[in-house]
């Protein structure tokens, strides 16, 4: 978490100030949104009937698992200033392929391995287009968003494959003992820990922030920018494919249109979690809190019978506030006289 401030000076010249977390803000990134999350959970537990129960906790967490999972590599990608919009389509394609292979008679263990390999290939394709050809990731992954979804329909059409073994589908929706916490949360937590360490406590993580702040500066300081980005996209593909496998088991139905639009929910969680869409700042704690907050708000509002349209409005507004608030803070800071501002900015740097 100290990382984003230490890499901040690099960015000073390259990106406009409002793009990053406000300077001199010493709280660890994500603590604001985590506070909001805790506040919301407390208020909802007392005021929303049925919110605080183990069953509802299970429902809520099951909705978050895939979003949080995919958010892990995507957070790293966004930190470097890139984006991967094709994640949900990779979930869908992985789900469709899983269904097709199961229908063809392969064992689930083998299918899962093949799906992960497929994810790596899909991610590598994104990565190659971005790094070798130097295309903007936004354009590349808008393209593969459509391409991979299209392939999913080629694989499975509008069919659904649904006869996965009960033992697997039951595992996907059951919880650890009577805790209400879904089984999948444990492996997810392991991945969260690994990613958090990678991002916040290793040279690789520092390199990612450096790339997000100024790619040129990062390159000059000896970071192999292209190689790192390539592997991030591969990771995004593999994790999305894993998400597709879990999604399929959870709903017990492999379909080409599975998880359509999920990329927006993942990106929403990342932005709400305080990661700058321009790269260079934010942390994993905030993203996980963002994912949980979005899901909790939806869950609570559904329990008090708020119609889905209003629900969309509320989550949309929440997101805009989350994105706008840091910008406003940054603007307010830059409203000082010019001379003092540059002095202040320099002072802020360690």
């Amino acid at each position, binding site marked *: 978490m100290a990382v984003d401030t230490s890499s901040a000076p690099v960015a000073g010249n390259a990106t406009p100030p409002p793009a990053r977390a406000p300077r001199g803000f010493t709280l660890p990134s994500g603590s604001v949104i985590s506070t909001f999350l805790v506040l919301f959970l407390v208020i909802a537990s007392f005021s929303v009937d049925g919110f605080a129960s183990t069953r*509802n906790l299970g429902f809520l967490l099951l909705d978050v698992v895939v979003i949080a999972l995919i958010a892990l590599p995507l957070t790293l990608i966004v930190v470097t200033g890139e984006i991967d919009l094709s994640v949900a389509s990779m979930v869908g394609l992985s789900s469709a392929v899983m269904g097709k292979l199961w229908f063809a008679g392969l064992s689930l263990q083998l299918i899962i391995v093949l799906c992960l390999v497929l994810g790596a290939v899909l991610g590598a394709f994104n990565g190659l287009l971005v790094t070798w050809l130097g295309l903007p990731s936004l354009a590349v992954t808008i393209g593969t968003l459509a391409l991979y979804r299209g392939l999913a329909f080629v694989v499975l059409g509008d069919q659904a494959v649904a006869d996965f073994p009960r033992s697997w589908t039951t595992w996907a929706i059951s919880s650890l003992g009577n805790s209400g916490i879904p089984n999948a949360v444990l492996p997810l937590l392991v991945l969260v820990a690994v990613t958090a360490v990678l991002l916040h406590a290793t040279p690789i993580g520092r390199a990612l922030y450096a790339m997000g702040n100024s790619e040129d500066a990062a390159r000059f300081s000896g970071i192999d920018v292209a190689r790192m980005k390539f592997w991030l996209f591969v990771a995004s593909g593999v994790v999305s494919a894993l998400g597709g496998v879990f999604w399929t088991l959870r709903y017990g139905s492999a379909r080409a249109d599975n998880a359509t639009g999920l990329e927006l929910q993942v990106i929403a969680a990342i932005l709400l979690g305080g990661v700058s869409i321009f790269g260079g700042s934010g942390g994993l704690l905030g993203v996980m809190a963002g994912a949980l907050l979005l899901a909790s708000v939806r869950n609570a509002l559904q329990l008090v019978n708020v119609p889905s349209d209003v629900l969309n409005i509320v989550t949309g507004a929440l997101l805009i506030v989350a994105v706008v608030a840091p910008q406003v803070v940054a603007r307010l800071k830059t409203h000082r006289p010019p001379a003092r501002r540059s002095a202040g900015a320099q002072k802020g740097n360690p």
Partner: protein
Amino acid sequence: MTSFLTARRLRGVITGSAVAALVLTTAACGGTTRDDEDASSGDSGSSASADPNAEIPEGLAIAFLPKQLNNPYFAVADGGGEKAVGELKGDYSEVGPSEASASSQVSYINTLTQQGADVIVTSANDPNAICSALDQARAGGAKVVTFDSDTDPECRDAFINQATADGIAQTQIDLMAEQIGGSGKVAILSATANATNQNAWIEIMKSYAAEKYPQMQIVSTVYGDDEDEKSFQETQGLLQSTPDLKGIISPTTVGIAAAARYLSGSEYKGKVALTGLGTPNQMRDFVKDGTVTAFALWNPADLGYLAAYAGAALSAGQITGAEGETFTAGDLGEYTIGKDGEIVLGDPTVFKADNIDDFDF
């Protein structure tokens, strides 16, 4: 509300749900299964026996969960449900996702489970994806009725089927025979060439026509792919290729509307008969200007109405969903549960100049 609903959108919606519904009902199973293992579900859940004389208690919480909200077809169906719940002095609610995806209904089912709903009436976006959620709801004491699009029969207590394939096909042939005097050349304007429902109906139409109206010849079947433009052009093509064509049957709401538009602006208006499946709102003008005499569709409001009564009867223990049980559904009268907990609404409603203004969907 209805002012937002354009005819174009409605057309797509109705055809879409019709297609989805009948894929399920005619093919009996929407999911592909790897082996043909027969997961026979002899007893559909409840082991309790039915008590036909049980009173339906007041205040039942009956929730409608359509494929998506703001969908005119389901708005009408749920409206029928609301009327029924009102008659039963129950507690009506409508919840649902804003997009009709396979998994989006799950969190709404979970919410209803958490709220302790007595009856969940739903139309499934995916026959399997909502199954485990429905299982949890039923474990929590809710009764589950599906309508329009069924789930796996194991996951619900009863399914309200809007019409049987036989009923749909025969009604259209009878309407056509009536309009052309039972003899002459007839063509079919269908949806896509591989549309499961339409193909099933067309098969039945052909055999039924050959048997009942031997003078009536079905000369060709063309496909408008459920696109307005293409259906329009195919209609034009039919009339040019078969000059002595007496009538067109279009078993899809997109097709019949496009064909009616072509006919009403052509020299064939009133000379070539047109019937099929359409919605009153999209066909109203063509019925009034004489292009179309009669067409058919099931009434979605009745569908929701029947589903609500079935749910209440299940919740009260009047029925358990077993074959042969009977219950009374308000104004619609008595219904008998068929195989696999299926309840058929009845033959499609026929819309003509004298009744079309009674319907708004």
